[in-house]
């Protein structure tokens, strides 16, 4: 198993908790709206050829909230500063759900910071058909249930199974509160993002979508495809909003195939 380091880094005028592991060129991982889930099988697989750099989003418990960050575009700007100040150079990026929204904002602002971009079940654009599921209208339990189609996936039980400890409850509420702050209105998309994405040029982009995803509907993928016509689409069978844990093998194969070729 990869050597995993977790440290608090003083960067971009913030105390940012950063997880680093693996070897190779940096691969920036932007977690979703519920926070970092811990080291999973897909992390281990990708860490063979990449150094995974995983910032824990400000306001999600481990890293203090930054009052001035009021939108996903602000957060994207913050992470651009982080990349520059940590001298990571040009990186690959994988963003999950709201993390994909952040990655897309970063690419829209400056496509040259990324080598390749993977957007998994991406939020950030108004879906061409359907609606992004309103997680804020759910209790945390319902929210969690809607994030996966395959509740039998072993890693789902590992991270979300069993009773919820007070600490876990608080972390979920931290994450959901911060996501509310940034994404309440318009709900988890930015009307100008699609226009700016049209200007990212030839940035290699992969859109990963679990075919059973009822959280980010297919219309989200179609909206991204419309904004980034050259993007590849990787459909993951037997998976919902969390293909990386619901069908880890297919996810790993698709993403490795994109990043390592």
């Amino acid at each position: 198993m990869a050597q995993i380091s977790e440290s608090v880094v003083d960067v971009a005028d913030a105390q940012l908790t950063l997880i680093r592991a693996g070897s190779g060129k940096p691969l920036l991982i932007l977690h979703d709206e519920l926070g970092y889930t811990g080291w999973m099988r897909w992390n281990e697989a990708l860490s063979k050829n990449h150094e995974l750099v995983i910032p824990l989003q400000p306001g999600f418990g481990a890293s203090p909230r930054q009052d001035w960050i009021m939108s996903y575009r602000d957060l994207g700007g913050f992470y651009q500063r982080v990349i520059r100040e940590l001298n990571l150079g040009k990186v690959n990026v994988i963003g999950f759900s709201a993390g994909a929204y952040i990655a897309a904002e970063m690419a829209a602002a400056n496509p040259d910071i990324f080598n390749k971009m993977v957007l998994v079940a991406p939020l950030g654009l108004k879906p061409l058909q359907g609606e992004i599921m309103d997680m804020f209208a759910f209790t945390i339990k319902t929210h969690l249930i809607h994030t996966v189609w395959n509740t039998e996936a072993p890693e789902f039980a590992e991270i979300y199974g069993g009773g919820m400890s007070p600490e876990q409850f608080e972390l979920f509420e931290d994450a959901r509160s911060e996501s509310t702050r940034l994404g309440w209105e318009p709900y988890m998309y930015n009307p100008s993002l699609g226009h700016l994405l049209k200007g990212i040029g030839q940035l290699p982009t992969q859109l990963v979508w679990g075919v059973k995803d009822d959280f980010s509907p297919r219309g989200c993928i179609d909206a991204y495809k419309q904004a980034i016509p050259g993007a590849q689409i990787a459909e993951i069978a037997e998976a919902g909003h969390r293909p990386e844990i619901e069908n880890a093998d297919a996810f790993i194969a698709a993403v490795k195939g994109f990043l390592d070729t």
Partner: protein
Amino acid sequence: MKIAYFTERPYRWVDEEAVLKNKAFFAVSNENFDREKASADYNHYLDEAVYAEELGFDAVCLNEHHGNPFCMGSVMNVEAAILARITKKVNIVLIGNPLPVIKHPLRMAEELAEIDLISKGRLVTGWVRGAGSEQFFNNANPAYNREMFNEAHDFIIQAWTRPGPWRYEGKHFHYRHVNPWALPYQKPYPQMWIPGTLSPETVEWCADHAYPYIGLGTSLGPTCDLWDFYADEAQKHGYQAGSENFGYLIPTFLADSEAKAQELGSNFVYGGGQGAFSRPEHTLPSGYNSKDAIRNLSKQPGGSWLGITRDKLGAAGGAATEAVDYDEVRKKLRAGLDKAQRNMQILIGTPDTVIPKVKKIIEVIRPGVFSFFAVQGQVNNEDRMRSLQLLGENVVPAIREHAKSLGLVDPITQNPGLNKLTNGTARDPVVDRAALQAILDA
């Protein structure tokens, strides 16, 4: 003491089983709405307020909720403006305008100033954060609720007191030309009374501003604790809190016989009553509560916030998906009502049985404002008016006399915060713990 009358102005015609199945009033479909009935109801509730004035109440209270048949006061300022014209003496008490939900403090300042002008200075304007469900209805970001509340409040005071035109660039609100040409009749501006359900943060904020805090039917023990907390905070600000800093509102229904009162009073739990205002996912949207409140909720197994426990928040939520045993639900609601009556959080009876209870309550918590909250549910106009009449003709005079004997002063007679305390002086008690113990022992 100022004695007030309050009603949620319920929409009385919604099918109870639709509410029970939905597990809340909020989010019951408005396909159940009947314009003729609603039109009659709005007019009736205005008539009730006028009748309360005739009966000698000092104030009529209004509140505001959105998308909810529990309370038809969707735009409370409209009703307040009408009352400003059709009543003559009563204070019009707003408990209160949900500032973060309205999201337009300059417009709010203008509306309230107009009401105060038309009423010739009878407005008491209160503020609330807005229930969790209001954040959904109005698409108000819950994570900015407290910030927007504070900023809107501070802005309105400026708009009422600082000669314009001036420019405002805040965090959440921006105005390039602040110069309202309707300013309050009262100088410098109307009193602000703040209703609450025992959020310590709100109590602290009230004490910081010396604003009266109105406990909304809160149970007596925790109410005493929070009022002591208010008084301690007041002491830090150099003043002695007294009855002028506190108000209390309690559901009350009267009839000519105990049996009839109980039969109709059971409508306090119609559809689930206040506990069914909205479901947990709507009551506590993420970001709505402070970090401290969430931590308390997460760590105390029995802890709750607005009746919502961590367990309820951690459960799946949503409307009932399986068949509901309505009789069983009603049985539980009735048991809850009986318990609330034993705890004196709901008063149902005849003047003879209710007056002693009110006396005991005011002996314990010593409020300067006391408001009776009319029955909910499907009680007809005649029975509602009879309850109001029995209150006005029997209970109000008795309570007024008793309050006088206890030395309870209201905030209009004595401006809160003016009774200064010098450093090192012990503060006077604001509640009567011995009286509370006597109730608990009984």
